[in-house]
């Protein structure tokens, strides 16, 4: 049974790091890399062995309505792979990047807590437990956003913390109402009980959850905190926040709750489509006007989350496949772009596109990988972003949502436009840069190269034979609305 270890390993690592590390961060690095590497191996193992099955772990020997249970199915192991993959590359990038700040060992302890929270949210089958793990992840995230100890970072962290605690309060209210109406906290039991409860309860609770988790995943009307928080954090943390935190806490929770618990009510699917397309268009438009590279990437995250939400809203099998695939792809290329931005910031000391110039000769790895990531996010053929966006657009056309398909196409074109701007000014500008503050270390380079290779390799997942083994079980879990109840409760 590997599920409890998914949570125990990073939690233990977090406490051991605070115990054993002194002024130097060597032991902290070794411990955290070991922890995340073992987590990635466990996650990959569970992903390739789970298939269509569901494994349940019941804590401390109690049976299901009484205990907190951990659920491992295709969807959760898929998300675990994404989280731990990005976490590993992010740690590789951190090693030399974080040494510019004071007391780097604290960073690794907080980083492990962040992973604990996200893995917990993904693995748990208990709705209050989900809330608790979410708070652990958010607490670490607030501290990590403020880690640079500059005025802007405190400001962004405060804004993030205020928005985060408002949304957490709303989610707690929703959990309370669900408990009052169903007398249980296990998600599968709630789903089974809700079929007998007045459907108005479902709508009210779903509305509260949409506001709560919408704030966490930064869907358009709830997005205001994201550009500040994600652009102020240290670069590896930006990539964790943009790449996986908004997906684990926001999109994954939305999928679990709206599809597996509430059974995807049609009203909310329409709302997902509307909010998703607003996110795509408005965030792309706002990104066009940014001159701060990391801020541009943060707005781009909002717009890509819009694509995922649009796919979830259309709700056909093909659209869900596109959304699930886009979750993976966005994690990979957005993390890579944030590493590029971090490397440039480390070397030049600026994030302003106007102060950058021609980096082709001086930073070949950064420039090359950023080009791959740009082509991928803009959706050009051999790269992974093309396939997921294409699937979502085709699914929209097939489901007779022509307007949404057009919006998605316009969104992709706008994405291409603002990334061309970033490339043109940031990496292929006219001024030759000769002075560098710091060189890019091997760890940072290898993190970027790994993700750049993955940008191409993951597009293989769409080949039918491979898709049936990897993405299709995930789609089945999401589409099969009563399957989750049967799988967990064994009825």
């Amino acid at each position, binding site marked *: 049974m590997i599920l409890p270890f998914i949570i125990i390993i990073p939690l233990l690592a977090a406490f051991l790091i605070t115990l054993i590390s002194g002024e130097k961060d060597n032991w902290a690095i070794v411990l955290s890399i070991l922890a995340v590497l073992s987590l990635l191996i466990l996650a990959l193992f569970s992903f390739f062995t789970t298939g269509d099955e569901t494994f349940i772990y019941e804590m401390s020997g109690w049976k299901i309505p009484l205990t907190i249970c951990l659920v491992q199915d295709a969807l959760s192991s898929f998300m675990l792979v994404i989280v731990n993959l990005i976490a590993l590359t992010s740690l590789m990038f951190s090693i030399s990047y974080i040494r510019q700040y004071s007391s780097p060992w604290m960073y690794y302890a907080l980083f492990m807590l962040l992973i604990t929270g996200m893995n917990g949210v993904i693995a748990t089958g208990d709705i*209050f437990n989900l809330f*608790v793990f979410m*708070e652990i992840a958010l*607490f670490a995230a607030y*501290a990590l956003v403020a880690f640079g100890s500059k005025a802007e970072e405190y400001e962004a962290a405060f*804004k993030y913390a205020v928005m985060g*605690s408002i949304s957490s309060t709303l989610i*707690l209210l929703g959990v*309370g109402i669900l408990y009052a109406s169903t007398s249980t906290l296990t998600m599968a039991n709630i789903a089974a009980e809700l079929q007998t409860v007045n459907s108005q309860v479902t709508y009210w609770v779903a509305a509260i959850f949409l506001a709560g988790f919408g704030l966490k995943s930064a869907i358009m009307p709830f997005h205001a905190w994201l550009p500040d928080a994600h652009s102020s954090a240290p670069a590896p943390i930006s990539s964790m926040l943009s790449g996986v935190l908004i997906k684990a806490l926001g999109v994954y929770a939305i999928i679990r709750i709206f599809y597996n618990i509430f059974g995807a009510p049609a009203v909310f699917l329409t709302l997902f489509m509307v909010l998703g397309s607003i996110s795509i268009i408005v965030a792309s438009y706002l990104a066009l006007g*940014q001159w701060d590279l990391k801020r541009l990437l943060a707005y781009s995250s909002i717009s890509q989350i819009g694509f995922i939400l649009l796919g979830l809203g259309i709700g056909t099998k093909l659209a869900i496949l596109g959304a699930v695939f886009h979750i993976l792809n966005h994690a990979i290329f957005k993390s890579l772009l944030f590493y590029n931005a971090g490397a440039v910031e480390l070397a030049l000391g600026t994030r302003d596109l106007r102060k950058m110039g021609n980096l082709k000769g001086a930073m070949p790895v950064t420039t090359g990988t950023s080009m791959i990531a740009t082509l991928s996010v803009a959706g050009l053929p051999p790269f992974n972003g093309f396939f997921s966006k294409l699937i979502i657009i085709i699914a929209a056309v097939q489901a007779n949502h022509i307007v949404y398909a057009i919006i998605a196409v316009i969104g992709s074109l706008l994405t291409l436009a603002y990334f061309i701007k970033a490339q043109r000014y940031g990496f292929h500008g006219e001024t030759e840069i000769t002075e560098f503050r710091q060189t890019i270390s091997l760890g940072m380079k290898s993190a970027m190269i790994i993700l750049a290779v993955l940008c191409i390799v993951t597009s293989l997942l769409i080949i039918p034979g491979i898709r049936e083994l990897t993405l299709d079980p995930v789609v089945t879990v999401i589409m099969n609305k009563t399957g989750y109840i049967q799988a967990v409760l064994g009825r």
Partner: protein
Amino acid sequence: MTVYVLCFILLLVGLYGALTKRDLIKIILSLSIMGYAVNLMIILFAYRTDGSFAILVKEGSNPNMVDPLPQALILTSIVIELGITAMLVALAIRLFQQYKTFDITKIRRLSG
């Protein structure tokens, strides 16, 4: 029913404060009020008129008792809120050291 409505009004008071106040400390207090409102509401869901405590009930009898689970939930949520409030206050102190003010309209170096 009235008590739930009153709790909801308390929640809205907290939300109003968090969204409209300009002082960092008042924002933190408003967030605490929101948290208290939700905690109170969940405790009230578990309340039974004239119910006894679960720990005092003899085994085998089937009396009217208060649901103990929400009390455990609230204990957890209070601890979490304490942590978040401590974090917010620490951030507010650092912001004051940097900007020499608690007024959020003067704390805006981030834009766009």
